[in-house]
């Protein structure tokens, strides 16, 4: 009954042998993300750029063009409307108003007045002033940088520095690929999606550490084995676990994306991409990077019990 028996315990796939392909793919991904970021840019939500967001439910299907022309004539600058999950739900984005915070409140009042009786329910009204928007942007950037550094420090503390550098590069890759995803899809980039980026960093490093743990173990166990073969073995031995865990996480995220509601759809969709990238980067990038780091083969033996003669491999 246990289907897991159909899966090999340690498949013998040559990952590290193809490391140049992996590195090229990763490099291309990062490059494409940076180009997208510079060329297209992120669709920043009001959390970061400041502005007004109003979600309304209309009486009957929304007449977007009528609403658009009515709100457009208010002189509030750029106003965008989009259907949000259902045909009677509309998301209204109003650009940040010139002037002090009072001008923003006045703009909200003007929009509400113009919509009048078309609206059955104001589901959400959010306003972020320019001051707070700037602060959130700064805090977000700090959180990302500190998370990557903090995680790398932990890896350094638990492993050798080579592992920490590889983990750091893999994390930067993941974050870049996430940002690229947002630039490509033009999904709104806001506080929640920034949380998704950091979650992916956490997930990816979790995956990487599991494989690194195995690398360290086989490094101690098989002192004579060539490095490439050894890294390959570590990746293969942990591959089933890597794929299974990603799969269950993706199952849960699928449920969240399909049924978790419109408000967090961008968040859950980006997490799906992030889990795929994070899973790939641990064996496709972090481990191959180790081959360039000049790993010391005489790893300090903290636990002498683990250095006994090689056990028979499966």
């Amino acid at each position, binding site marked *: *009954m*246990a*289907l897991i028996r159909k899966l090999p*315990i*340690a498949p013998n796939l040559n990952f590290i042998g193809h490391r140049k392909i992996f590195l090229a793919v990763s490099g291309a991904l990062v490059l494409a993300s940076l180009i997208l970021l510079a060329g297209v840019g992120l669709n920043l939500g009001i959390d970061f750029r400041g502005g007004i967001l109003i*979600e309304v439910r209309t009486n009957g299907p929304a007449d977007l063009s009528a609403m658009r022309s009515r709100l457009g004539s208010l002189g509030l600058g750029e106003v965008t409307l989009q259907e949000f999950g259902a045909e009677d739900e509309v998301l209204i984005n109003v650009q940040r108003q010139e002037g*002090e*915070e*009072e001008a923003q*409140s006045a703009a909200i*009042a003007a929009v*509400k007045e113009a919509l009048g009786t078309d609206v059955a*329910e*104001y*589901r*959400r*009204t*959010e*306003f972020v*002033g320019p001051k*707070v928007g700037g602060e959130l942007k700064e805090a977000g950037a*700090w959180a990302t940088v500190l*998370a990557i550094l*903090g*995680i790398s420090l*932990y*890896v350094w503390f*638990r492993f050798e520095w080579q592992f920490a550098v590889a983990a750091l590069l893999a994390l930067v890759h993941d974050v870049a690929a996430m940002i690229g995803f947002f630039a490509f899809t033009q999904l709104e980039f806001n*506080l929640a999606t*920034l*949380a998704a980026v*950091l*979650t992916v*960093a*956490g997930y990816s*490093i*979790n*995956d990487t*550490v*599991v494989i690194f*743990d*195995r690398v360290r*173990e086989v490094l101690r166990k098989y002192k004579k084995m060539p490095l490439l073969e050894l890294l390959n073995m570590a990746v293969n031995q*942990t591959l089933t*676990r890597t794929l299974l*865990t990603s799969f*269950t*996480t*993706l199952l*849960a*995220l*699928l*449920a*969240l994306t*399909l*049924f*978790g*509601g419109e*408000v*967090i759809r961008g968040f859950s969709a980006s997490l799906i991409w992030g889990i795929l990238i994070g899973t790939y980067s641990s064996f496709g990038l972090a481990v191959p990077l180790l081959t360039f780091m000049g790993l010391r083969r005489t790893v300090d033996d903290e636990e002498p019990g683990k250095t006994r003669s090689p056990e028979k491999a499966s």
Partner: protein
Amino acid sequence: MVQFPKWQVALVLFVLLLGAVFAAPNLLSRETAENLPGWVPREQVNLGLDLQGGSYLLMEVDIDTVVRERLEGLVDGIRSALRRAKIVYSDIGLDGQAATFQVRDLQTVDQAREVIRDIAREFVMQVDDGGRFRLQYSEQSLKDLTTNVIAQSLEIVRRRIDETGTREPTIQRQGDDRILVQLPGLRDPERIKSLLGKTAKLTFRMVDESSVADGARVPAGSELLSSTELDTAGNPRRYVVKKRIMVSGDTLTDAAATFQDGQPVVSFSFDSIGAKKFGDATRANVGRPFAIVLDNKVISAPVIREAILGGSGIISGQFSVQEVQDLALLLRAGALPAPLSILEERTVGPGLGADSIAAGKIASILGFVLVIVFMAGAYGLLGLMANVALAANLIILLAALSGLQATLTLPGIAGIVLTLGMAVDANVLIFERIREEIANGRGPVTAIDTGYRRAMATIIDSNLTTLIAALLLFMFGTGPIKGFAVTLAIGLVTSMFTAIMLTRLLVVTWLRRRRPQQLAI
């Protein structure tokens, strides 16, 4: 790892029991839970504003305005003090955050210094060789002033919100000069916003009749103010009003909305000092108009018909019933020492909140079912044991959220769903290890023992790194994101516990009972 001391078994059972007890109130309705006897845990999960609906308002207290007002007062004080001491001065006024003036005769510098020191003790005084004085707040007194202004503002904000009958508001200071207001379940944030947006500084002043209000020339000591009343052309009326205040609103003891001749008006009464001042002023000015000024706008400018000695009066104007009620409320609650401006607002209607909860429930249940079906299919009996642990994990997570009174937000629900997927990781790690050990030719007991032992370090390492990310999210995130970080972190800890302790207990018990010769994995 296959030895399970009695105390560990007891610990696992105790945690499970605790989890069940603390999670249980969530099954009850809110009313039933609140009426439970005191010794049972009755806290339910604390829903964030994005789930139960409500408003989050971040406001900034405009300290600069207060400083400027105080400095203007200081300038007035200096003027009269110097005049009294017969010191000739020139060029007096404000220069940024400082009050400055020039003494004509350098011989009088020391005398001026002494005169000023008496009226400006909280200021730092600098005098240059040319006889130019410069006074500004010392760092300490500015800090004290800020603290005082914020404390007063908090009090006034609280009073105003309480007067509207909003239930369970949270009003707290944030950072140096900010006030955070959270209003759960509020349906109409606009009213609160407009109430908090007014300073409500009320003054009674004489109208300056020596000048016409055409804006051409305003005599010193008077100012041109616009009115809330409209003239026949539909433009706001304007009045030239003396700057000197007859009576100010802080001497009011009560205010109420009422009607006079069918018109909504506000009736008010003064305390004894206010009543005397008002009586004296009206007695001296019968037949002349005076202005009732609220936040630098003239509400009305009636002519004094006779001395008003009773210490009470009414304010009439072009008001709606709602406006009269709000004005009475503002006067009762008192004036804010400084204007507030809204920096950030997030309001979620109850409809969206309820929809989000429903969506979150469906997603959680579906995610749970998908994962347990997959685990049972993949690992058979062991998978079922992992599923028991997963269910226990959810219960303990819910219990921890209720017991700690952490706030559950929509991203928090996403964190729970994500935890569901990631929680099985520890078990997958262990099971894969056991599979390897069996393939290496070990018997079930040794395989399970070594499997757990070897997987342990990996589980702790990998979960700790994710915890670092969650911690940083908590430190730098706001509102809903904090909620996400909290559930993610609690979920990681509970999943480690259930995977390492509960599943192991189940596996070991099964191993003892059945004594299988072969492990079907």
